[in-house]
């Protein structure tokens, strides 16, 4: 077997293209969704997280500043959501975290409404004001229940 410059060049190119495709898929397509700075960890407790998933975005006024790093239960069986945020964004202690839906049936994400306190959250602290996810089915259930009730009450006197 002798060296063949053209063939070796083509094989080298093929391997580079292949590795480039693997890298593109791994890093750009499959990698973390939020590519900005991270490392500021806080957590928040919710009564109901709906369909919130790990890696869901965290936004302030619609601007992405971090993502959900993990979801679990705390010792009072509430949902404990860990947030991984941009450390350069200062978050007041009276900030409210709410789970909202993109569109009617879209993905859930966390929106932070900043408070007016001059104390800021430190890493590892908890966002104490939270607003749970709105479950559409439950709302419809309540609506149906409420409209049914008066009718039955009206019937009773007859």
């Amino acid at each position, binding site marked *: *077997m002798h*060296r063949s410059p053209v*063939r070796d060049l083509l094989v080298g190119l*093929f391997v580079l293209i*292949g590795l480039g495709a*693997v890298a593109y*898929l791994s890093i750009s*397509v*499959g990698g973390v*969704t939020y590519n900005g700075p991270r490392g500021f960890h806080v957590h928040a407790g919710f009564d109901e997280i709906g369909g919130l998933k790990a890696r869901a975005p965290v936004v302030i006024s619609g601007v992405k500043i971090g993502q959900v790093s993990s979801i679990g239960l705390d010792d009072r069986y509430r949902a404990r959501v860990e947030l991984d945020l941009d450390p350069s964004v200062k978050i007041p202690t009276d900030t409210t975290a709410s789970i909202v839906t993109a569109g009617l049936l879209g993905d859930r994400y966390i929106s932070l409404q900043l408070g007016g306190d001059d104390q800021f959250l430190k890493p590892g602290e908890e966002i104490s004001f939270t607003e749970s996810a709105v479950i559409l089915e439950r709302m419809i259930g309540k609506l149906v229940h409420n409209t049914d009730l008066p009718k039955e009450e009206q019937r009773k006197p007859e």
Partner: protein
Amino acid sequence: MNRTIQDLGFLVLRFVADLGRLGLFTLGVLRALVTPPVRIRLFVDELFKLGVLSLIIIGVSGLAVGMVLSLQGYNTLVRFGAEQSLGAVVGLALIRELGPVLTALLATGRAGSATAAEIGTMVATEQLDGLRMMSVDPMDLVVTPKALAMVAVMPLLAAIFICSGLFGGYLVGVKLMGVDGGAYMSSLENAVDFRDDVAVSLLKALVFGVLVGLIATYRGFSSAPTSAGVSSATTSTVVVASVSILIVDYFITALWGV
């Protein structure tokens, strides 16, 4: 009745014996892999034959599959006003299933059959016996570089297939059907996870590479030394490799997939 049961027993025994021979053959390949001489130049030569020469069929097939996925997905999604998630549909289908499986099937047809035919012809024309007479181990010189190259090439080909599929999907979805380009890419990047999707996809491609590499070289190596033997080795390579790819794909998805 007795005769039928005998036939059944014979079939089972033949199958088990075949599996055992494939196992021994695999051990032989592994031994040739770790003991010198290491055949780097032959390995590169096989990379060229199996990899570089498969680039065109892989690229064109990937492009076509991505384009048709995008077209079908768009027509379904637009009914629900959800054409923004076109990127996720095309990307997940390509990365999780179609990329590794179609690449492996194409590589079986394009490279696996050629490998089996080449080794089978060497058996038929007694070239392997000639090598043995010169005390060169044909496992070392002929089989291992081909099998190893198939393993190395498959994940790379699958990644290229997926990337050209994503590009084809982008072309049809964004340029032809008018989906927003940013929405396509962001739904793709949001939906695809490295560990759940990309890593499983590459693992599948690697396992398929091992399957196709071993089956093709084994069928060629154990073919009958006649022209009919070579043709049946080629046919059974394509059949056995394709079926095992599809079956193994199910089990990998069931074990690691979501």
